[in-house]
């Protein structure tokens, strides 16, 4: 047999056979069993909402901090830098939540898969830039937290050389993280979560997601 149409007849026979041998576990299909799965999805939504609320609190607190330290350029600029990062994280998270809510799986595949893949790209970019900017901006974060919690201005009390070395260390760590994820990403961890993180950082997941979007565009073209 070489023709798809010839195989169709066999497929129909297979279909009839399936009707006889397949059985659904009706106990697992009861509302009582399906509801926990639904509430698990709601829990995921709840945690995403909690994360968004946390970023919102940080953004507002940083705004207050900037206003209160406008005459201290070192601290104000540090707070502006971390505020820009926090606003970016918050807006990406809100866009992902709205995007996820808008997905209706009963819509055509070409439409839904583009939406799903764009959300995946947004998640990968948020993870990557969140980790990298967090690494680069760790000294400004520290400066803001030390001032806000303990009232200590590390730019005044600390040595200038210490600040410069730590900024450079942050940059170096950022470069080293990308290099290590590209070189050892596949071998570093057995955990799927860590593996995904490594692939996000190395750019492998982004390449795959963009590749799939290209496949979908190609599929839609006649």
């Amino acid at each position: 047999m070489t023709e798809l149409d010839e195989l169709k007849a066999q497929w129909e026979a297979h279909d009839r056979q399936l009707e006889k041998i397949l059985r659904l576990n009706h106990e697992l299909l009861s509302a009582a069993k399906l509801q926990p799965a639904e509430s698990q999805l709601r829990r995921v939504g709840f945690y995403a909402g909690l994360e968004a609320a946390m970023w919102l609190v940080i953004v507002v607190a940083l705004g207050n901090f900037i206003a209160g330290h406008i005459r201290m350029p070192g601290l104000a600029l540090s707070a502006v830098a971390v505020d820009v990062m926090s606003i970016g994280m918050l807006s990406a998270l809100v866009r992902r939540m709205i995007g996820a809510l808008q997905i209706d799986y009963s819509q055509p595949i070409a439409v839904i898969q583009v939406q799903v893949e764009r959300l995946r790209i947004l998640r990968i970019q948020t993870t990557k830039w969140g980790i990298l900017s967090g690494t680069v901006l760790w000294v400004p974060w520290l400066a803001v937290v030390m001032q806000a919690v303990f009232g200590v201005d590390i730019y005044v009390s600390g040595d200038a050389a210490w600040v410069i070395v730590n900024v450079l260390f942050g940059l170096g760590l950022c470069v080293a993280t990308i290099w290590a994820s590209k070189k050892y990403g596949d071998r570093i961890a057995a955990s799927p979560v860590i593996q995904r993180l490594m692939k996000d950082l190395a750019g492998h997941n982004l390449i795959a997601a963009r590749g799939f979007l290209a496949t979908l565009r190609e599929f839609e073209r006649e």
Partner: protein
Amino acid sequence: MMTPRHQERFQALLDEHKRILYKVCHSYCGNRDDREDLAQEIIVQLWRSFGRFDERCRFSTWMYRISLNVAISFYRRESTRTRHVISDDERVLDAVDETSSQPEDIRLLYEFIEKLNEVNKALVLLYLDGNSYAEIASVLGITETNVATKINRLKNSLKQEFSSRQTG
């Protein structure tokens, strides 16, 4: 809110179309436990969307759209998922005497489907299940002409695949 009557209707329709669930899961997952995870994800998604199901539409078309969309999304993240070991009691869809039910050609056909990309898998499944070009186009979201072109291409590649097997 789903009423008991809705739940009964949902179960009856799902029972009537359980073959779709089986074929989609078998086409997108090679591993038995992954197939079970996928079947459960599809059922939960069908259940969540059932309140919006328009009874004037064919249930099979609606079920195909949801099942294939969930399966493609599942397949795309499959490599980074935590694998579960599922006991027989927890399986939502089971085939009695599964191995004897698949003739050689069907096994080869599943192998051929496995090699296709995510969207072409969907196209072949819909075609083999006897859906019209208009129905396939509506599930996939492409034009009927495009469906016809792609099916012709797939027929040619299947012919090549099978003839290379015979010569090899």
